[in-house]
């Protein structure tokens, strides 16, 4: 149990939190000792403006944490186990939870936790596909089709891009649905949906996409190493920067409401030149790609 004063339950986005003047205690809880968590932590620490005392623990060590002051710490949780550990240790604590997908954030049903999501906003995935491939149609596979908001619909019109969603369920299995998608679209967009795109299904998805000579655009750099053509994702450094931006804003404007969650703000692009060559695709350079992507950012 963390020894600190319990704070009142706060409804995020309605009641601002107040940070006391002076040093701030930031407790970073990481799900494991993975390299990518440590890289994010390093970037975060480097980019937080104000003087702060950082404590870094794993989710297993959280229960034995002792703080040097009575001040309410700000928690930063990296990964789902860390987010759960923070909520269990102190359900009323404010925390920024990174390394979560939108799916995981919704499962968590957090009360006081700001989700810093791994997902890119949909409009960014779509713009990436369009500017990378100059394609006219992109398909994705979902369990539940997503309703596009006004901004996304407008962007599709401006880009002259058709975005088609294909549903899988007990009747409609993944590979037949994928084959239909690849016949009817220029590219496959893989969104972070654990039940659909996972370690077990990845092989069949990438091999089938290649067989149809259609590129697969993914949310994960690991997929690019495996054989997807490209991915747009937030690197550990990008995630660290994002967290730092949110924390700095909180510190500078403690009255301003916090969002329940944010899609990734900063992104990195990865491409597989071997796959591009095998598919005889000529990809634009990253500076040109980023310049065009910036134009669609709100």
């Amino acid at each position, binding site marked *: 149990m963390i020894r600190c004063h319990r704070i009142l339950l706060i409804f995020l986005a309605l009641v601002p939190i107040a940070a006391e003047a002076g040093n701030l205690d930031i407790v970073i809880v990481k799900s494991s000792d993975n390299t990518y968590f440590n890289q994010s932590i390093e970037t975060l620490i480097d980019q937080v403006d104000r003087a702060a005392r950082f404590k870094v623990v794993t989710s297993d060590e959280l229960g034995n944490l002792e703080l040097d002051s009575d001040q309410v710490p700000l928690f930063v949780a990296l990964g789902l186990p860390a987010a759960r550990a923070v909520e269990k240790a102190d359900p009323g604590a404010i925390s920024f939870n990174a*390394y979560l997908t939108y799916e995981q954030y919704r499962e968590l049903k957090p009360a006081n936790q700001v989700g810093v999501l791994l997902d890119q906003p949909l409009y960014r995935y779509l713009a990436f596909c369009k500017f990378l491939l100059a394609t006219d149609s992109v398909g994705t596979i979902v369990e539940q089709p997503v309703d596009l908001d006004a901004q996304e619909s407008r962007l599709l019109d401006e880009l002259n891009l058709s975005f088609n969603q294909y549903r899988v369920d007990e009747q409609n*299995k993944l*590979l037949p649905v994928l084959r239909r998608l690849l016949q009817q679209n220029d590219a496959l967009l893989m969104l972070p949906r654990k*039940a659909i795109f996972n370690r077990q299904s990845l*092989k069949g998805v990438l091999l089938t996409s290649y067989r149809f000579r259609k590129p697969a655009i993914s949310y994960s750099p690991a997929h690019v190493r*495996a054989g997807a053509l490209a991915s747009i994702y937030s690197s550990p450094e990008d995630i660290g920067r994002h967290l730092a931006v949110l924390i700095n804003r909180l510190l500078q404007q403690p009255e301003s409401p916090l969002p329940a969650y944010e899609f990734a703000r900063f992104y990195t692009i990865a491409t597989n030149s071997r796959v591009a060559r095998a598919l005889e695709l*000529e990809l634009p350079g990253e500076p040109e790609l980023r310049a065009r992507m910036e134009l669609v950012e709100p």
Partner: protein
Amino acid sequence: MRDKSGILLSLLLSCPILSPAVAQEDTTGAGDFFDDSPQILTASRMSKPLLESPASVSVIDRQMIEASGVRDLADLFRLVPGFVVGYHSGHAPVVTYLGLGEEFGRQIQVLVDGRSVFIPSFGGVPWSNLPLLIEDIQRIEVIRGPNAVTYGANAFLATINIITRHAAEDLGNRASITASDNANPDIADAYLRIGRHHQNIDWRLSMGAISDDGFAAINDSKEVGKLNFRADITSGSNQFWTFQTGTSHSSLGRGFPREDDTQTDVERTERASNSYLNLQWEGVRESGSSIVRLTHTRQDVTDNYDPGPITYDVITGITTYIDFDRISERSELELVQNNEFGDRLRLVYGGSLRRDRVKSIFLLNQDDFRDVDTGRLFGSMEWRIGDQWLLDMGVMYEDTSLTSLDSSPRISLIRKFGNRHALRLVASVAKRNPTLYEFDGDTEFVAEVPAFGTVVIPTFMGNNEIQPEDIESHEIGLRSRLGGGIVTDIKIFSYRIENHIVADEINVDLGPPLNVLPVQTSANGETTDVGGIEFELDYKPDSQFRLNTGFSLVDADSTLAELENSFPKHTAFVAAQYHINQKHEISGALYYLDAIDWPDGDHIPIARRLDLRYAYHLEKDFSFEVVGQNLLEDFEDYEPENLHQRLFYLRLSGSF
């Protein structure tokens, strides 16, 4: 037995398959993004970009295969410029490039997932009873021209590389049935596939039955049962195992109705089985990969019969027993190393050891296995000179126990113009090694002649002095990716074939009463110069429509008229496919083959063939197809009595 197999099938079908609804391990989102993932599209699984290929390559992909609606694998090669397809009988297709086609053709290397399916005894490929189902094929790469550096000797005129799908792409169950209502051929085919995934193993079991009556006028019906198993196993993040095995069993009609006492080729049924094993290991590194492949193929043919009493000249009542039984085996261990040095240099090298075994009283006049061992070393280098030039050089050394060490070099220079055009200049030399039959064949006709007793008449004697055939090839090709989904390839080529292995005769003194008789043998001789132009176009403007077309114009000049006339002057095809909407699809193809003299057949006039197909796609991956073949006038093939007639068949297929 039936009950047990039914239970087994039920168990197999009820195995849980990978589906989105199956619970996944509770990994963090971070792990899926950043943890190491095994390479799936390795360099060996991805074909070299056609723009950078040092040879003329045509690809028959899955979309083209399905749009064609064909039942016979050999028919797919009508979609390759310069390829000539004929049917010696309903179950004996002949596939050749440009010319020199024979039932047991020896100038084309055919591989299935890297395993040679060439029959070492007599040559040729048993197309109809290959243990391979069209439904399992992912793509076919056809290299038009010699390519011994990559595929060994016997990649003489061309190479056909058939690639089946990775098991991970075939999860679930799928079945199809095909049937016709015609009296001839009466078609009945069935196919069943089961694919499953367990941890790091994907496997596929596919089985099929194919039967039809062949041509109306001859005894060439076929019934073939096929079974294939494939398992793909990932070990760690960079090691891959592929295990494949399969078998086919066939009953094939042979011979002709007995019309007089001089005939020995009487109606009968030949039984054949074809089995194989293919084990491959692939290790992937940052800078390349290694492949080790162990393959084994065995063909067993049972064809022995009593033709009845024979009359020869004035002698009647001659009896004999004809035994065409034969066993052929090919076993090979191959190693291929692929090393990349930055972006500019790539080396591919390796070697193989192969043993061919043949047992046949008919072919070799002995009841023991006869072995032929072959060792092969090969290497090639691909060097990118700047961004627009690609130099590819390679050589293969091959030594067999029949002939001496030979080399087959190749050099190609490619000039790219951006990523849209590539001009290639290719020069290569290749050899076609003699088959065991040509080298050491020993066939005899043994008969009991009234009043004389047993008479042995040699009919063929191999030639231990025979040398490989040689081909020297030069070609200029231009491949272009034009806008609007148009890809073209045009090639001008010149081949010189020397030392053809042809039939010859020697006189043998058999003593009384036969005395001196001419006996067939094989000998080197004759030269053929072949030149021409080939063109190929693939037009895919969108996902609804596709057009493929190609033609070849060939001029052959040989010292032997029989060889020269085996090269048809023109071949052409046009194939199109159109998805009207998600449910309705139509496709069709028109094929043209100029007049041809088949070396072991007859003179056949110009042939035109039109195929049409309509497909109705229901939900949940079910579809219903109607295919019509030979919709123009009837045409002859190989022999005048082989008449292709109009044919319709239906196919119902679906996943469940």
